[in-house]
């Protein structure tokens, strides 16, 4: 179950940024600005994907958990699933 969530998130993001960085550049019309736009798309895809990937990998196997105050624990026990 946990694995499923992770796999879905991973594939959705990889697909999304992969399309932006790898597929959309082929559809940019020829013109003086084509090179700049393609560079921008590829770099955006790489930077944003990398940033998201680091965030999710850092949380994949947590070595310690959050330390909550008892009020918060009381609230979360009843309100969050």
């Amino acid at each position, binding site marked *: 179950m946990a694995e499923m969530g992770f796999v879905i998130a991973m594939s959705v993001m990889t697909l999304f940024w992969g399309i932006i960085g790898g597929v959309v550049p082929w559809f940019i019309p020829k013109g003086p600005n084509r090179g700049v736009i393609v560079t921008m798309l590829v770099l955006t895809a790489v930077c944003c994907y990398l940033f998201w990937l680091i965030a999710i990998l850092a949380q994949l196997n947590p070595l310690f958990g*959050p330390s909550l105050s008892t009020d918060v624990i009381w609230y979360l026990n009843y309100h969050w699933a």
Partner: protein
Amino acid sequence: MCSLLRGEEMCLAQLFLQSGSAYDCISELGELGLVEFRDLNPSVTTFQRKHVNEIKKCEEMERILGYLLREVKKADISLPERDVNPVAPLPKHIMSIMEQLQRLEVELGEVTRNKDKLQRNLLELTEYTHMLRITRTFVQRSVEREPLQAQYEEFPFLEKDTMLEYSSMQRLGAKLGFISGLIQRTKIQAFERMLWRVCKGYTILSYAEVEEYLEDPDTGEPSKRVVFLISYWGDQIGQKVKKICDCYHCHLYPYPSSNEERNDVVEGLRTRIQDLHTVLHRTEDYLKQVLMKASESVYTWVIQVKKMKAIYYILNLCSLDVTNKCLIAEVWCPVDDIPTLQRALEEGSRKSGSTVPSFVNRIPTNDAPPTLIRTNKFTSGFQNIVDAYGVGNYREVNPAPFTIITFPFLFAVMFGDLGHGAIMALFALWMVLYENNRKLKNTRNEIWNTFFEGRYIILMMGLFSIYTGLIYNDCFSKSLNIFGSGWSVKAMFTEGVWKIADIRGNRFLTLDPNVTGVFTGPYPLGIDPIWNLASNRLTFLNSYKMKMSVILGIIHMSFGVILSTYNHLHFKKKYNLYLVFLPELLFLLCLFGYLAFMIIYKWLVFTAKDSRLAPSILIHFINMFLMQGDGMQPLYPGQTGLQVFLVVIAVLSVPVLLLGKPVYLYWLHNGSNRIGMYRFDFGDEFLHQAIHTIEYCLGCVSNTASYLRLWALSLAHAQLSEVLWAMVMRVGLRMDTTLGVLFLVPVFCLFAVLTVSILLVMEGLSAFLHALRLHWVEFQNKFYSGTGVKLCPFSFSLLPSSFEHDGLL
């Protein structure tokens, strides 16, 4: 794209201009703004050049135009806002413009002088009227009372003992004289004291202040004046008094001897003042008319004179050829624009009606051409921030196209807040949508101009900040819970780890990921929202952000090193690829790439179950250099061997980097007997390479650590944001409803003001600066030299106008 990546290919060209059509050709070139002229007469001083007389005439016209503009500004006439662009006038039209300007100058001068004279006159008459009015009260008082002793009381500052009696003076037959006038209020005390000391009681001074402010004719400032009346006995006293009055800059007016005379004079003055007012009004109207007529064409004249002066300046840079019929000019021109250049020359020749056309001829050169990089309104901002560090060498790789994305991205990593990013993006979007609004474009406020020029940069920064804010899960210091947290508190209870009694007994309890069901998986988009509620939030975030900064830094630097291959390949120095690029890349990746690998490996492999044995990456990294590590648990089998291998490769790449290139070049130049196009100096080359090696190797270590500022600034931003929420907004939200609603409004205002000023402006500028530093130093010193010169094309639109500088236009 080629242009933005590398810069245009430039060439040196010679223009052969026929003497008759030179002026027109250069006018055409100025309108186009394509080429940069070189000075062919560098040894000639400014006063010896050929067209110095024409330039003097242009400067004379500019002087008159400046005078005109100042007068127009003084009269508060607004210049018509028009987008006119008149072409430079032909030399034969110069005289007519000059005549018109000179005529205007003379006329304006006359009218202004007349007006000043009239105003001075008016002022004198007004003062005279005041004086007569006020001294009437002095004399009336003295006439009403009975004379003799009682009179002395009217003159407040007299001392009885030294004063001779009025009656006794009359008996002596001394003549009573009067001097009256006005003096500045600040001087009256000193004046009185002086009179007393000099005349010792033979004078009587009485004075009263004028209620209104009178204009001082010399300075034009309103000042308070005092009307005085001096009565004296004897002619000599009279002379002394007059001299003292001169000394104190008094305005003296004749004192009427009787009341009838006084009344006549007052009547006369009144009519004269009325007449003067009328004449003055007419003069001012006429002046305004003249100025309005001038203001219609002054703008055109300014541009025409500016263009003319520029053309003559360029003509001075050209040289005559041997036959003395043709002007030669040397220009730097982009190769792609040579046909346009040729067409412009033909157009100029056609306009001047010359039969022989001017033409352009490309010549080879060894000088390094200036760099030209064509940008549009979007890329120009990013190109400017790269150029601020240094303009690229000719045809060197330009970091600007990559900076368009990496600069806002690194800014956003340091700024990462959804709410603040959204505000910044909206502000930039407003500026972008209204960029054609004239008022926004043409303000004189320097700070606003800086922001406006960078509107696309700010827009990109805002958009990326929205994304990083989403990943950091930070929106005005609160987290969004879109997908449901991966941590479950219920599970701690259902598994029996916590009981109800625990809650009563303790203040803080820590969730344990080892317990089943507590941790159900990583949050799919960014940082889990539960960390916002945790007290050990920073422990987790600091570790995450530091590792993220190091990984991003290593990737950014590797990208920089890889970009240098473009330069090596373009400048046909393939040996650089093997002797410089390869050792650099190996050094960087073997040491710091391995560090990044270890970080990611630890994230993937070590779970909560092994949390006790989880190794410290830093200790392992240090041990790698010291070639130790037998006492520690290896991260993976074969770790020691691999690490030794990597360290050996890195250490071996240093001497290759240091010695490879100089030795290879030495061998190359010794093998062939020719010296080549330049003298090869082994010592010089070796020194350069040694400096480069030391800089690179030490730089790798220090630059990697420098990227930790990404962590530091994002921590600072998050903490400031949280403090603002907890200390300002929460105070307002916690009050109960009746009073709280009213109290919340000023609290929110304070919150908004502090958010904009501290978090958006101050933190924004700070993150901007640090992202800029990371680009300029850590990224660009891997491949960019930035010691080039920018092309300054001869273009009329780029010429500054001195009037705009003085704020007259």
